[in-house]
């Protein structure tokens, strides 16, 4: 499970208050840093869609905020900032949660992550 995806997922638990659905809390027990081919225009396009505060929070929850220091917002002219683009690529796509869980902040409902795959299934009773 990549941090790009974490930035897009929310809790769908019926009893969770609206303001607590996003982002999901991360509990990572096994993290791997992998190598994924870099596509510059993909990263340039995705950056404006990322909630940067949520991404910083995710790194913190994973104990990686000292290793990867990112500012509170995207630098100006980031399109031409090669170092920043490479860093964004690494953080969004190459840090992989192998095992762990997402936790709904409103209800504590856990969504297990195994073999990189998050199980986001809810029963019909839990669902909206």
């Amino acid at each position, binding site marked *: *499970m*990549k941090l*790009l*995806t974490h*930035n*897009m*997922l*929310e*809790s*769908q638990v019926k009893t969770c208050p609206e303001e607590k*659905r*996003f982002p999901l809390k991360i509990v990572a027990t096994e993290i791997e840093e*992998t*190598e*994924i*081919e870099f*596509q510059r*225009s*993909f990263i340039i*396009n*995705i950056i404006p*869609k990322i*909630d940067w505060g949520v991404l910083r929070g995710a790194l913190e929850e994973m104990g990686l905020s000292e290793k990867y220091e990112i500012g509170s917002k995207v630098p100006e002219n980031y399109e031409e900032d090669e170092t920043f683009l490479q860093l964004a690529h690494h953080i969004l*796509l190459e840090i992989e949660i192998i095992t762990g869980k997402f936790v709904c902040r409103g209800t504590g409902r856990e969504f297990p992550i195994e*073999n*990189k*795959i*998050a*199980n*986001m*299934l*809810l029963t019909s009773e839990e*669902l909206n």
Partner: protein
Amino acid sequence: MEDPDISHITESNFQKIYSPSEDTFLLCDALTDEAEGIKERNPKIGVEIGTGSGYVLAHVSRLFKNTDLFVFGIDINPLAAKLTSKTLTQNGISRYEVINCNLLNPFALDRFGSMIDLLIFNPPYVPTESKEIQFNPKDEETWITSSFAGGLNGMEITQKLINQMDQLLSPHGVCYLIAIHENNPHQIANDLAEKGFRTIVVKKKRLRGELLYVLKIIRKK
């Protein structure tokens, strides 16, 4: 191009997940034929809902290798999600994420919305009783059923996606959707037209008594 390698999937796995069949191959053929046109749209985010073995997603990822495309594979079936991830890795693909979920339910559409450039759905399209589409992750008997049982007119799942189409497709996005005659493709096209989309039949073929359509859906200009 060679067929995707799914040699790691066993016969007993195929008791629980959908085995690549005529509809799978027709969809792959359609995507191969359409590849140049899709590339002109410069897709960045791809999503396949209901990946099953991962055959189609592996095919697509290879068609668009060395492009910007990053793909999300979605399946409600935990085993299908796991095998899809293996299939992609086995076929040398790294730009992907697999999620075990129902349609795009856990995606925050106000964030992820209108972001999908390439959406692929070979839905459970077989007309069945509505109660047959009840999926229970704890009951493995329901896993394979979820790959084909479509409820009333085989449209109960497809309709959910159609209703969300405007929140999903990016301005230049394109969706490839499989339907059979019993799903009433004309009605699908009319419904989508009212929502601002154009539907084009890119493949129509009778296979094993099923009249299959591959529909291409884009926003009206």
